[in-house]
């Protein structure tokens, strides 16, 4: 009897291991415009796939992770960490004197056929206007940093998505177009 149990337990463990090692089907945007795509197999166990889309100052990172299920609070914890990473990224790209503020946050945001956890941060900076001695300071929104995470129950995968928009304030049409491209990429990510 002990032998049978041992065989049963080890075959259960083997099947769970095979489940977590089974390659994920990465979540992808429907169109990628002129973005440069970098695909990585981040981990084999559990299977994690990461795709990075970059175009100048716009960035989109999508990670697909093999999971059994995930409560919203686990995703909120990921976002707390992402917030730290975002602050670093923003400080590097826009200088240290920027302010990162959470503008929207939802624990059940309908997305890609699922209910996602979503957070959006605004990147603000004090900018000087006018010529000395008539200088006034105004706070402008430079960019937006957003994160979305959800469990795809159809494929038993979690998707964590993170983006940074290009600078808004540059008064540059190509950047505005880039921002629109990024917006539609993020909006049309499909996981199954």
């Amino acid at each position, binding site marked *: *009897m002990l032998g*049978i*149990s041992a*065989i*049963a*337990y080890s*075959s*259960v463990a083997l*099947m*769970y291991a*095979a*489940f977590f090692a*089974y390659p994920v*089907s990465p979540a992808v945007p429907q169109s990628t415009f002129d973005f440069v795509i970098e695909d990585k197999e981040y981990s084999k166990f559990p299977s994690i796939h990461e795709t990075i889309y970059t175009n100048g100052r716009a960035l989109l990172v999508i990670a697909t992770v*093999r999971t*059994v*299920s995930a*409560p*919203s*609070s686990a995703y909120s914890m990921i976002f707390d960490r992402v917030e730290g990473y975002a602050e670093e990224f923003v400080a590097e790209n826009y200088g240290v004197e920027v302010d990162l503020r959470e503008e929207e946050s939802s624990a059940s945001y309908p997305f890609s056929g699922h209910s996602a956890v979503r957070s959006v941060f605004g990147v603000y900076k004090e900018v000087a206007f006018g010529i000395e001695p008539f200088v006034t300071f105004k706070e402008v929104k430079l960019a937006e940093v957003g994160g979305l995470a959800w*469990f795809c*129950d*159809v*494929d*038993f995968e979690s998707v964590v998505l993170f983006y940074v928009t290009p600078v808004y304030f540059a008064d540059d049409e190509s950047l505005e177009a880039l921002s629109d491209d990024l917006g539609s990429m993020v909006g049309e990510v499909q996981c199954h």
Partner: protein
Amino acid sequence: MNPAIILLAAASIPMAAVSLYRYLEYRRPSSAAGVVGAGWSAAGVFLVSAGMPGLLLLPCLLAILLLGSMADLRHDRSRIVIVRTAVIVVLLVAVSAGLVVL
């Protein structure tokens, strides 16, 4: 159907087989509960992929095992059965409390 989901559901089969073998041998209610619990786990995987909240899976499984263990207690008050029942109760309380907090 994603092969990963079939693998996850199939992981319940060995436990179902062992519980069934034990039930046929000793007729203990806990073994019958083991068969039902394994069936629930396998079915639950497909239910989750069809949209059922995954958080319900584990508490329901523990509740099934607890019923079986409590039924054993009526005939067999040996220490091992008492301890096993207590462990399942603690797990069920912890998991349920965890879900409420989360």
